[in-house]
């Protein structure tokens, strides 16, 4: 979401009053993505929520594409639509998600959740807008700095951002080990 809101401001820097076709498409896809995301959390039908999540994640992938970040876009589809959503659907099938409305698909925490998500969105939008205020991506010839080709992304990731990258992989490893430990302990408890 934050990327969506930041883009018209950032890309509009050279000519804000005459938006190009890409910028208009960007905003339209962003609206669809936002709508799908809202339906995802608002619907009472569990599996429909997972399927609307596909639309929202796919919309974000399209936004990446429009920002010339082809590599990031396909990785987004591969990881989130292809694996995370499949995992969610797997879980929903295992727990026999009913067809139709789930009466208990509601939470007393929703107002707190709304406040948290609003706070997170505000923070992200502020940070992203502030960081990329003067960055200009040339969508016609995405070759220079600021474009998102695999080469540029790879260079940035492994030259300037290696440390955060490695920290993230350690975090994921810790999560993996934690998951295994938790599942082992449950089994021992049952016996």
């Amino acid at each position, binding site marked *: 979401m934050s990327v969506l809101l930041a883009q018209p401001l950032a890309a509009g820097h050279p000519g804000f009053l005459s938006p190009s076709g890409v910028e208009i498409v960007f905003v339209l896809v962003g609206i669809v993505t936002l709508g799908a995301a809202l339906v995802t959390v608002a619907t009472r039908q569990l*599996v*429909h929520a997972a*399927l609307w999540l*596909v639309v929202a994640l796919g919309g974000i992938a399209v936004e990446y594409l429009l920002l010339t970040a*082809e*590599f990031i876009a*396909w*990785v987004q*589809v*591969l990881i989130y*639509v*292809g*694996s995370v*959503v*499949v*995992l969610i*659907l*797997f879980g*929903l*099938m*295992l727990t026999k*998600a009913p*067809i*139709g409305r789930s009466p208990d698909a509601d939470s007393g925490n929703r107002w707190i959740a709304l406040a948290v998500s609003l706070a997170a969105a505000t923070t992200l939008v502020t940070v992203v807008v502030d960081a990329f205020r003067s960055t200009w991506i040339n969508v016609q010839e995405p070759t220079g700095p600021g474009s998102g*080709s*695999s080469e540029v992304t790879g260079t940035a990731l492994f030259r300037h951002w290696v440390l955060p990258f490695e920290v993230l992989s350690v975090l994921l490893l810790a999560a993996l080990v934690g998951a295994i430990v938790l599942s082992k302990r449950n089994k021992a408890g049952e016996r």
Partner: protein
Amino acid sequence: MDALDVTVRILAVLVAFLLLPLLVGQTEHKVMAHMQGRVGPMYAGGFHGWAQLVADGVKFAQKEDIVPDGADRRVFQLAPALALIPYLLVLVAIPVAPGGGVAQALDAGIFFVLAVMGVGILGSLMGGWASANKFSLLGGLRTAAQLMAYELPMLLAAASVAMAAGTLSLPGILGVWEWWWLPWQLVGAVVFFTAGLAELQRPPFDAPIADSEIIFGAYTEYTGLRFALFLLAEYAGIVVLSALTAVLFLGGWHGPAADGLGWLWMLLKTGLLAFGVIWLRVSYPRLREDQIQRLAWTALVPLALFQIALTGVVKVVM
């Protein structure tokens, strides 16, 4: 690229998409028939009963389109389209001939094809859940479990080729391909093809649609055209997997007189691999669900990691 060029390319992809899966389907019927000595319909149209395919298509179109009472209508009806369309999109990025013989050269082609192929699985999952049928649900569960197990080795094997070539673009990989990559990437090729078979739920990995256990898995409740779309998605999947394996591991259009006959070599390699897929169906027994999982995690993933290590070592030493 002018408008005419774009139109011709899109038309070529569309024709390939409509023609090749049917060709593979017909070949499967005939190859299986002759391998098992059960020849089936041989008279329609004359030569080996080729027109039976047309008759089957007409039959599918005539059948009543039934949606079960308890089903989730919209998800149920949307599922076949979601299973089929990704394979059409994948064909756009597969190079068939040297020098611009690809509908659209993509910078991150490998990731594009693997990502979009993974989306097609959602169709089976949606069908499996929305049918309101226990067999369908079991089929959907098995599909999901299988996809999660085999996505990783497939990605790793493809990553090995990308490492070897130093590029993620499919035409770029073919541009630097040499014959000695065949033995170098052999392990990766086997892993990729096997994982691809499992992702397509083709025998011996067809536990998700095992007809003797769970009727037809996620597709149990489908009839008529929607069922035909699922079948077509399976054959389109065979075409895409064979073409991708040919491009990544067998050198695609490389061969004698590649400049003029490149497309022929590509078609030949794809066809041979597709024949292998069919051959496996008539010659291998179905793996059990636990055997499928064990093969992925204890054989394919380590083999794929070994291939990546090998690729890295050779790449650095050379």
